């Protein structure tokens, strides 16, 4: 099992992801510079959070043209696992590997806070270690995290149970007040049709140690490790 973490210019969760996987979960982990194209040695590739290219045009809009993204498409078509976190989710949507878009938060403010996520589909490879309906405490940190898709896409996501995480209360209720950014259907994370690409706005790499307030992020990492 080997993880690769892509670094775009402006990425900043790379080091946090590395620490979580390498130091806490003791997994073989490498950094991948965005101009590299050989992903053959990896089982799972992470697109971490940050502000790739400053998010100046639109988050992810420039990063999707990095050389590594072409390889990533082939990587996913071979069924390998990809997880995009925060800016990584935005890049996956921009590149078309996931449907929909991440719009500015409805309150038009950057928001860094703990959120609760309800694991909606625990048969996915990314959530196999979660109990059905389990509530995960994982923080967000973004300005553009409001998930949007057209009605047909949303219906498809719902029907195919591809909405993996929804913002919820600590008791697991899906309410408007538990939604920190105005995401449609309280969506915090989705998978692709094939089920091997996950995009999520919250940062599981920040929830891996009791000292920092939560270890629920490990459920996602452990699911990935178990799934390979």
């Amino acid at each position, binding site marked *: 099992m080997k993880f690769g973490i892509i670094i775009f210019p402006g990425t900043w969760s790379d*080091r946090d992801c590395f*620490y979580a996987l390498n*130091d806490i979960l003791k997994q073989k982990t490498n950094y991948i510079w965005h101009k590299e194209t050989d992903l053959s040695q990896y089982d799972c590739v992470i697109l971490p959070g940050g*502000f790739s290219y400053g998010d*100046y045009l639109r988050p992810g809009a420039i990063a999707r043209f990095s050389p590594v993204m072409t390889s990533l498409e082939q990587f996913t078509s071979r069924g390998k696992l990809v997880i995009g976190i925060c800016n990584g989710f935005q890049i996956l949507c921009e590149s078309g590997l996931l449907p929909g878009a991440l719009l500015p938060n409805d309150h038009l403010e950057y928001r*860094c806070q703990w959120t609760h996520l309800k694991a909606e589909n625990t048969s996915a490879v990314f959530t196999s270690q979660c109990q059905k309906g389990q509530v995960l405490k994982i923080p967000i*940190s973004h300005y553009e995290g409001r998930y949007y898709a057209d009605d047909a896409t949303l219906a498809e996501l719902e029907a195919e149970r591809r909405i993996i995480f929804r913002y919820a209360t600590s008791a697991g209720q899906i309410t408007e007040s538990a939604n920190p950014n105005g995401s449609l259907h309280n969506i915090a994370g989705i998978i692709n049709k094939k089920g091997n690409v996950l995009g999520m706005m919250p940062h599981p790499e*920040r929830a891996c140690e009791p000292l920092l307030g939560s270890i629920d992020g490990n459920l996602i990492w452990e699911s990935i490790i178990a799934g390979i």
Partner: protein
Amino acid sequence: MPVSKETLDEIALSQKEYQLIVERLGREPTEVELGLFGALWSEHCGYKHSKALLKQFPSSSKRVLVKPGEENAGVVDIGDGLVVVMKIESHNHPSAIEPYQGAATGVGGIVRDIFTMGARPIALMNSLRFGPLTDLHNRYLFGGVVGGIAGYGNCLGIPDIGGEVFFAECYSSNPLVNALCLGIAEAKHLVKAKASGEGNLLMLVGADTGRDGLHGASGLASRTFEEERELRSTVQVGNPFLEKLLIEACLELAETDWIAGMQDLGAAGLTSSAVESAARGGGGIEIDVLKVPRREKGMTAYEVMLSESQERMLVVAKKGYEGKVKALFDRWDLRSDIIGRVTGDGLTRIREGKKVVAEAPVNLLISPPAYLRQVKKPEWLNKLQAFDITSIPDVSQRKANSALLRLLASPNIASKLCVYRQYDHQVGNNTVVLPGSDAAVLRIKGTKRAISLTTDGNARYCYVNPYLGGVIAVAEAARNLACSGAQPLAITDCLNFGNPEKDDVYYQLKECTSGMARACRELKIPVISGNVSLYNETKGEAVYPTPVVGMVGLIQDVAKHCTFGFKNEGDLVFLLGDSQIVDSSIGGSEYLEVIHGIIKGNPYIDLGMEKRLQRCCLEAIKRGLINSAHDCSEGGLGVALAESCLPNELGFVSHDWNIKGRLDAALFGEAQSRIVISVAPKAAWKLERLAARHQISTTRLGKVGGKRLTLKGCIDLSLKQVGEAWRGGLEKLL
């Protein structure tokens, strides 16, 4: 006399200073030379009015590796070969003119000061002061400043772990925006800001140079500015993405042996960067301004040297390694150009192609006159201090509830969540105690240790008593750290005052720094870096004397850090420290201003007791005797108890209090040297014995439990009421 008064005014030099330059240079300076002197002899770079006063601060301890002024930031050893690099800096004037970009570039500047030394920035803090938010313009400034800090800092991936926000009328139109950055490095990779080694090459890296920020150091930061709107174009615009690339590239470079030094371009741009590096290197420098890449056509040598375009670094590459350095920056898509070289003649020589446009000794440029004046205590200060508490009625038992709720909702006390949730405070995976506590706590990866960080400075105290206000600023910062379980290591300070050429302001500056120095000596905490921001005036009115103390402390075992919220039903609550309720402790308090509209009185502190209290608190936390600790500060005991209830929604019921003296002083007086702690019942006797050994009195206040805050006979509120007042106080004004 070839130079006009207007020219001198523009660069903030006096006629007398100009004569001094002519005398020492042996001739009239050229236009470019005059620009160099104006910038380097400004208060911002040259500390003309403050240097003599700053010398009072103790600056060494066995952990201090770099003292103030030696480098871009101070350095302290935290063991295991690791060091902490720290500095605070103001960006008040730019923020007053263009709040978003002013605050953003303030963050950018302080971050560069840290990574230029080879340290990875791991924490930001901000100490902010605004006029009341009831005023539309102040709301605009507040929104812009917070937005700018968030916009820039979040893009860099450095956690912003809090700080302070304080409101008072004197800051209307003259907000204070102080940014602190702390970095961590392996001692062996520290880089000096030194241009040494004759023949080594000066490389300018990062952004192109434009006309933005001309006269930032001399014009904006060293004069009062009634004509502020005209200066809008002097505020720089930040590019945090470029800064992020510079951070990563420069940290990579710091681990090589290809460079002799590195220095960022901040106030006074290339001028201060190059000349100060040359001074540290002991030699000279030569720069050809034609080699400086520009973003505008037709720029003069003068403009190139004084531009404050952001996101630029000066790298001193060892001869022969310039190609490797360039290749490293190329990989990060960063432009780098050789613009000059290190010489051995002790001169700063600026060329424009073949033509020499300035040539002056490095030592002369960095040696402005230092002023020290004797001034008397202003008469109005005596009047402020002579406040008689009997002139106001005591709070009645019936009105204590509403007084407490009003205090909790006062923007100075109320929760600052609506500010800090806009900052990423968790990136880096180190933040153990989030913003909103007495001090933030960051663990140090790979060790058991943690650092604790706080900023403090009650300017209202400094206004009514500059000396004691200075003492208290240091003491309270240290107390905040003690509440988190951290032993103070070092201070970085930012002194925000009015025009020092006025006697009253100079008196405040002198007294305040004396007070700070006294507390630093008593508590044995060295000052390792800092910044001075003078001329903070609007329409001739100075801001409160506002020293901001940034303090870092060390926690040996992160598992033993402490936070302020009550933890368990049934725990006993004690007041640790000064148990004498003195009526005069209401002087200078938040209560006096909020409830009675009076800003008068005289604070008081016993530094001996303060020292014993902090030691006692630290030992109690280390021994695991206490479950929560909260400093009693603005709003006094009533507010400290209320705040302790909120994090875990645990109430408090008092014993029967036998209050002698005034109720307002007992509930809301701000006597120093007091900490509210909670203790498991079975540990209580141990705590009392420990406190006795430190000669610190303990007062049993009551017990944790229920969902109400009850102080028998005067206060009885549900936690819902308490929480709503505290949580909504600031947010509802926005």
